[in-house]
């Protein structure tokens, strides 16, 4: 099957230039994220890696295991990613290749992206406007469902009980032959979220129970893949998620806000595998409804696109595509629509087995305006490769952009239709080194620089707030990751750790005397670190993890700093309880083991120690 020649890349901790991995027969095709991403940093988590985060949200995983800082407005509340010191709106989010950021808000809430709904996760760092389009400034997040072929019938039910009234139920069922794959996931996650905290907003700071942060989230994910002959594949995915939340008030306030989010996402892909080529036609839909108290915001995005990927020779591979997006928005204060059309081209030149370059381009038009042209250029060079070690040098330069959100442009009153797109330029260089052998030891380090211009900020003009292209920001930083893994008899163990330093300062602000100039952006820690130790055999596993978030300021001029914090999590699992064909994996996990009192954002209470017990039945 020609399918075999094609790639799915499940990058390891250190991505190597691996566009020649053969697709295993059971996997459904997905265009490789890093096929033209030479020189860019990508981290991925497989289905197995994600197991430790069952019943938790994407926000938790990013905060605990990546250099991304997650701004959390309380437990289970709005959580937005900050890649390399950029804002929440500078991260593009994709689900099965569809951009799912809200077009009105220009960002996503990581708390309502439950891990239960996805099978695989990748993060890409730095400007990637050319590869991923709008909003890929700080980086991008790629969520995938990965249906499989030839696995017959499988089903599982998972039940989780945890502190603060956590009660989650997950059902999964899948059936597949060699040519047809069906998979269904249904979940409901609920938490009273009535954690105790010290209320700094009350006289004598009593210990109280949070009484307005309950949430319930439920959804269904349906995947279908069909090889209707040896070189055609159809893949459909559907995801409905509904989250109802009491909005946790900031300490000192007694607001009783309610929020309900409904999202419907659907993608249909057609692949035709030709002679060294893949044609992909894609249609998709993302509909969001956000009800805040009684104010309803509805948006819809409809996508039609296609691209062609062709291996021309041993040296050259090219790709080109087009995408049309229709955006509809019906909010409490305005209704509008927006049309976007974008074309993108990629070329990869493999000078040798060890050296590859890529060039990517993208042009996007929204309504009658051109977004900034975004080229990128990257290189992967395997400097050393032998039985004992491997050294990879990666380097790239690129541009990114963000079209002003619909709220930025059309909110009544205050929206500013004359806003310019935000625009950024970045460059990075990184080394990834690996000692191979019984003990596998790897280290990678990346240095980046980035500037973001025309950064949009909302400022008050009397009682009306209005956005403008105010700030220029200059970022630079270092991201370091290390890992050691080895075996001890039947036991395997793994230790991974990372540290990131990130300096993101305003170079232009509100007028020349803006005290923010030269200072670190608000809620952007300069230092972050995390580490996990993991060991087990084929029945038992245990992990201990910790993450550290450094000081961060509340405002752009930095007079008030939030203290740093470090949290520890740990857990054990056992998967050898069996009865006939049924297996009963169990696991137990403790979060915030040392009951650390901390806030991510000023006066937003966060929970102390919590326990979670997972019980599953697998068929």
């Amino acid at each position, binding site marked *: 099957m020609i399918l075999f020649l094609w790639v799915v890349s499940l990058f390891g901790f250190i991505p190597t230039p691996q566009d020649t991995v053969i697709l295993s027969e059971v996997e459904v095709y997905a265009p490789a994220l890093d096929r033209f991403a030479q020189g860019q940093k990508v981290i991925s988590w497989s289905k197995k890696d994600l197991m430790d985060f069952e019943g938790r949200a994407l926000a938790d995983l990013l905060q605990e295991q990546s250099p991304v800082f997650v701004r959390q407005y309380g437990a289970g509340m709005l959580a937005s990613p900050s890649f390399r010191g950029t804002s929440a709106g500078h991260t593009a989010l994709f689900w099965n290749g569809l951009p799912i950021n809200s077009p009105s808000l220009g960002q996503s809430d990581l708390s309502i992206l439950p891990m239960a709904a996805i099978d695989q996760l990748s993060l890409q760092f730095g400007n990637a406007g050319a590869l991923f389009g709008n909003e890929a400034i700080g980086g991008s997040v790629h969520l995938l469902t990965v249906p499989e072929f030839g696995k017959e019938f499988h089903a599982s039910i998972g039940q989780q009980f945890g502190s603060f009234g956590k009660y989650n139920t997950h059902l999964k069922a899948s059936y597949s032959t060699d040519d047809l794959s069906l998979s269904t996931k249904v979940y409901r996650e609920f938490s009273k979220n009535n954690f105790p905290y010290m209320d*700094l*907003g*009350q*006289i004598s*700071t009593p210990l109280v129970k949070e009484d307005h942060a309950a949430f319930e989230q439920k959804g269904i994910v349906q995947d279908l893949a069909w090889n209707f002959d040896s070189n055609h594949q159809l893949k459909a995915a559907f995801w409905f998620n509904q989250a109802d939340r009491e909005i946790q008030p*900031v*300490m*000192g*306030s*007694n607001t009783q806000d309610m929020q309900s989010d409904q999202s419907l996402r659907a993608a249909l892909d057609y692949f035709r595998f030709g002679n060294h080529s893949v044609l992909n036609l894609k249609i998709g839909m993302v509909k969001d409804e956000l009800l805040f*108290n*009684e*104010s309803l915001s509805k948006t819809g995005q409809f996508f039609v696109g296609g691209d062609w990927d062709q291996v021309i020779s041993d040296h050259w591979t090219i790709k080109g595509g087009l995408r049309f997006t229709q955006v509809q928005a019906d909010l409490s204060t305005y209704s509008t629509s927006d049309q976007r059309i974008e074309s993108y081209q990629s070329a990869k030149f493999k000078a040798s087995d060890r050296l590859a370059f890529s060039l990517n381009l993208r042009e996007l038009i929204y309504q009658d305006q051109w977004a900034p042209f975004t080229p990128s250029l990257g290189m992967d060079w395997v400097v050393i490769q032998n039985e004992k070690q491997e050294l990879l040098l990666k380097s790239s330069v690129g541009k990114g952009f963000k079209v002003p959100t619909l709220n930025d442009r059309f909110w009544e*009153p*205050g929206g500013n239709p004359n806003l310019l797109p935000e625009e950024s330029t970045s460059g990075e260089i990184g080394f990834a080194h690996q000692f191979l052998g019984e003990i596998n030891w790897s280290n990678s380090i990346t240095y980046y620089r980035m500037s973001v211009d025309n950064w949009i*900020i909302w*400022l*008050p*003009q*009397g*009682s*009306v707030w*209005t956005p403008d292209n105010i700030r220029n920001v200059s970022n630079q930083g270092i991201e370091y990751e290390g890992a050691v893994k080895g075996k001890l008899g039947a036991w395997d163990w793994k230790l991974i750790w990372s540290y990131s330093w990130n300096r993101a300062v305003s170079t232009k*602000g*509100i007028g020349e005397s*803006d*005290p*923010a100039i030269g200072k670190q952006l608000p809620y952007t820690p300069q230092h972050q670190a995390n580490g996990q130790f993991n060991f087990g055999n084929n029945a038992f596993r245990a992990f201990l993890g910790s993450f550290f978030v450094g000081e961060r300021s*509340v*405002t*752009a*001029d*930095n*007079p*008030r700093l939030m203290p740093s914090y470090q949290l520890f999590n740990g857990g054990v699992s056992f998967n050898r309880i069996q009865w006939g064909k049924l297996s009963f994996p169990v696991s137990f996990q403790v979060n915030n083991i040392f009951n650390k009192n901390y806030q991510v954002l*000023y*006066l937003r209470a966060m929970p102390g120690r919590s326990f979670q017990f997972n019980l599953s039945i697998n068929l």
Partner: protein
Amino acid sequence: MKLKLNQLLGAFLLSFILFSCSNSDSEQPRGAYEQGILIMNEGNFGTNDGEVYHLDPATQTLKSNVFEAENLRPFAGLLEDMVPAGENLYLVANTGKVEIVDAGTFKSTGAVSGGLDQPRSLEVVGSKLFISDYGPYNASYATPDSYVAVVDGLNGGVVSKKIEVSNKPEDLFAYGKYIFVAGSEEGKVEIIDADKEEVIKVLEVDGHPAQFFESDGRVWLFSTGNDEVYFQSFHMDNFTKATTNALPVANATGRIAFGNDNIFYVVTSTGWPDYIDGVSRVSVLGPELDLDWMSGSGFYGIGYDKSRDELYVANSNGFQGNGTITVYDKEGAEIRSFETGRGPSGFLFY
């Protein structure tokens, strides 16, 4: 800052009217925070980082975050008003609480933390606190259930009664056992009998009532319209309107500072999208009328140091961080400027 004069009814004391009530106890040594200038920084919506700064105008010594420094916990609220009364200073947070501190030391002495929604101002009569409150927002962000809350006890406690008033009550003014309520949305002044805890009279007034003050032996109300501001005085024997002076000050924000010689400074703002802020210099009794006395952007609070004849104009700097205060002499020449807390909205001059 709003004028609070309830304990200064003796007529001759009016010659040194200012914001303070403790002036009358000149025997007692005054605490560190009962001298100089308190700067009220409202804080940012959603961050609850309101705070009080203290300035010694003689030495220019500025002390930041006084509440947190003295109480080892954040203020945790949006600071809407500061009201000195007796030994206490009442810090009204429109996020639903009143923190009560000793005016001299700023040490916490109590709080009203339950039963309030969006409190705006406070007045003390006898042993009762009266707190104007917008009430909760309804679905369309209107406030049809505004009230004045009653709390029995100078050091706070629970709300014992809510007296219904017109929408969006702002400033309160105590006169004997009566409390005047500035009903800002509907153009009303309600008069509450503090003993009966009920509204005994409702006056229709011009404009949107913003603030009461006492001048030239009379009680006045400052209220704003689109193209005019109004200064209305009252007969205090039968609670009727006495005089109304309308001045052609457009786009007044409701923030006003009272200078010497009956000169007032009114903050104006055209708002979005033209957006020009300004200060008009007017007099209710004299001929002074300089509509464009000052212009700029980001003007927020305003105050007048009568003892030094200096005008304090606060700039919110777009709430992106700390605000700035610029000090002018009475002719409008800039003397100095300095950084203060977030959203500086008012002053208390001792």
